[in-house]
């Protein structure tokens, strides 16, 4: 019984971890290619889900149409954001960019409910709610679907980054803006591309998580789960995101299952941060992050 529960807990923790990775990859994508730190990642996921769910419930759009509207919105919104907010801020201190994205988060928190109403909305992407039972193992279908979407996206994304011409150009841009310009790469266009991709991945995250927990502004709290994931893996590593996500998912599950009863409090949200600090003490740039070499 006990071992079976441990196994079940671990499997479900890992699945949740993959779903965290789906949100975190948007963060890494932006950091890697534009050096901007997006503290509004949770809000991006939230606003994407609110647009889709709002279109579907308030205006009766069919799901596909609502997703299409959400996709167009996210792309347009992120392009505008890149052009009018983040591009003027290139070269500013990190803390200024952090603050700009926090300001953006507040705007989204206010604007979402203003347009679509503040109540919690359902987002049904057709995944059943009954437990999925494989032998002795209980799983929830949305987790399986979410993890599958996550893996599929990361695979496509990995291929794009490693093999396609545009992906290689993006890596070049991430590595050095100056060299890229010298080599004839239109850096600004690739910044825009990075933000578009971030919008798409936020939409996917919004669909999966919105379907898992319902849609309202508090979805943005998922953004806080992202930090341990990305820091653990290293801010600029796609592989790191996957491994970080899996570890955090697992640690959370085990903490809630086995630590909570002893301390009499919810340790699930805070153990990932403790783990993160410990890892940082030994590896200051995460497990797969690229060390920054400082020169005078």
């Amino acid at each position, binding site marked *: *019984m*006990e071992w079976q*529960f441990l196994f*079940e*807990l671990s499997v*479900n*923790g890992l699945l*949740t971890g993959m779903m965290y990775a789906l949100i975190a990859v948007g963060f890494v994508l932006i950091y890697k290619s534009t050096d901007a730190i997006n503290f509004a990642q949770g809000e991006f996921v939230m606003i994407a889900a609110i647009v889709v769910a709002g279109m579907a419930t308030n205006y009766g759009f069919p799901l596909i149409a609502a997703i299409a509207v959400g996709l167009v919105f996210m792309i347009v919104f992120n392009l505008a954001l890149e052009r009018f907010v983040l591009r003027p801020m290139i070269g500013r201190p990190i803390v200024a960019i952090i603050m700009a994205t926090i300001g953006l988060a507040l705007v989204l*928190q*206010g604007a979402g*409910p203003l347009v679509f*109403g*503040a*109540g*919690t*909305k*359902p987002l*049904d992407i057709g995944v059943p*709610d*009954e*437990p999925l039972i494989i032998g002795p193992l*209980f799983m*929830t*279908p*949305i*987790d399986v679907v979410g993890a599958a979407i996550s893996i599929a996206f990361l695979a496509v994304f990995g291929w794009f980054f490693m093999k396609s011409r545009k992906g290689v150009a993006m890596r070049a841009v991430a590595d050095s803006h100056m060299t890229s310009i010298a080599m004839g790469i239109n850096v600004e266009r690739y910044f825009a591309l990075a933000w578009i991709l971030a919008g798409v991945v936020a939409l996917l995250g919004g669909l999966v998580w919105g379907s*898992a*927990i*319902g*849609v*309202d*502004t*508090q*979805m943005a*709290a*998922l953004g806080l*789960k992202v930090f341990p994931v990305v820091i653990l893996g290293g801010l600029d590593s796609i592989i790191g995101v996957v491994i970080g996500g899996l570890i955090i998912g697992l640690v*959370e*599950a085990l903490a*809630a*299952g086995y630590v*909570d*009863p002893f301390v*009499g*409090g*919810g*340790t*699930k*949200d*805070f153990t990932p941060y403790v783990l993160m600090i410990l890892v940082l003490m030994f590896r200051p740039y995460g497990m797969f992050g690229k060390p920054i070499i400082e020169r005078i």
Partner: protein
Amino acid sequence: MNHLKTGLLMAGMVAGVATMATSAVQAKTLIVGMACDRTGPTQSVGVVLCPAYHDYVKLINSKGGVMGNKVKVIEIDTQYKVPASVEAYQRFKKEGAVVVALWGTPMTQAITPNLNADHIPGTSPGFGTAAAANGEKYPYLFPMAASYWSQAGAAVTFAKQELGGDMKGKKIAFIFYDNPAGREPLPVLDKLAKMEGFELKKFAIPPPGVEMKVQVQDIVRRYRADFVISHLFGKGPAVHIKEFKRMGFPLKKVLSFVWGAGESDINGAGGWAKAQGYNALNFAGVGSDYAILDEIKAMYKAQGKDGPKQMVNSVYYNRGILAAAVHLKAMEMAIKAKGSGDITGEDVQKGFLAIKDFRLDGILPPLDFTELDHEGGGWARVFRVEGDGFVPAGDWLRGYRDVVIEMLKAE
């Protein structure tokens, strides 16, 4: 460019000072201060509850006000922040509020000493420190509805009923928000566990509780609870309904405290069909079959408008009605006692105590405030999701009232 910025900033400053000055002017009416959360973590409640309060006051004003005195509501959105709430309270005090509606447990704790010092009654329906229902210690704070302790008593009573009248050796899981408000019912539950002989296991959810699969899995698969009492806020309720459903646990065996079952939570959990059987405590009636709601609709119609769209969320809408109705009733009692509309907070405090058996056509429990008991009796009623809405599962009840009163006195 710089000149333009400078000019704009200065213009803004001047305008700001000007509006601050004009807001000091006020009409000679009864002032109510209402702290609201429309943009913070509990916004899904605030966006329904606060409009309901305004609607009821508008209705009374359209009928000539409270014994001929118009009522003006000053609402301030506090975003569930303590300093903002204290600032709001100072504003209410300055405007001469005779009663204030508080919002949020930590804010209530911060403002309570001020209420006693300034002699302005404040209300905290269904939240706040349970021990503050002791009117002898906090004469100016009126929880006005079942506190978390009373809710715990009612919850155990209901659980006992559902488990066939005997709780010996039964496994009860308590899943709660891991913050002070969430832990508030624990002392009563621990006490009742000993009294009734059931096993109580606690599952803490760290706020904001957007993800709680592991805890639910623990309850369903390892602990194998016979009955679940849940005490969550904000997004938590919708998430835990979904998770219990996904783990195949019958929702008939889940009972939520008062902040866990608005229509929007059910919606967020995927709609009525998915939440069948889910139980929730309430301290005001649920549904729209009440005369007072029809009157509000009629008022809107007379103005050529559709009824308030918040009304579909009857759980929180009716709680807004409860808050407004009791406030205005207390003012009415105060005016009656004083013989004129020139009342102060002290008069309204006595007005609260003069309220006896105020039902408002059954939307309220038989509230009855005494010197000691500022909860009005600690009434609660369980509503269950059946078909396309909430239906009552039993009548208004007070569980283990003696235990709660004893603890109130002990504080």
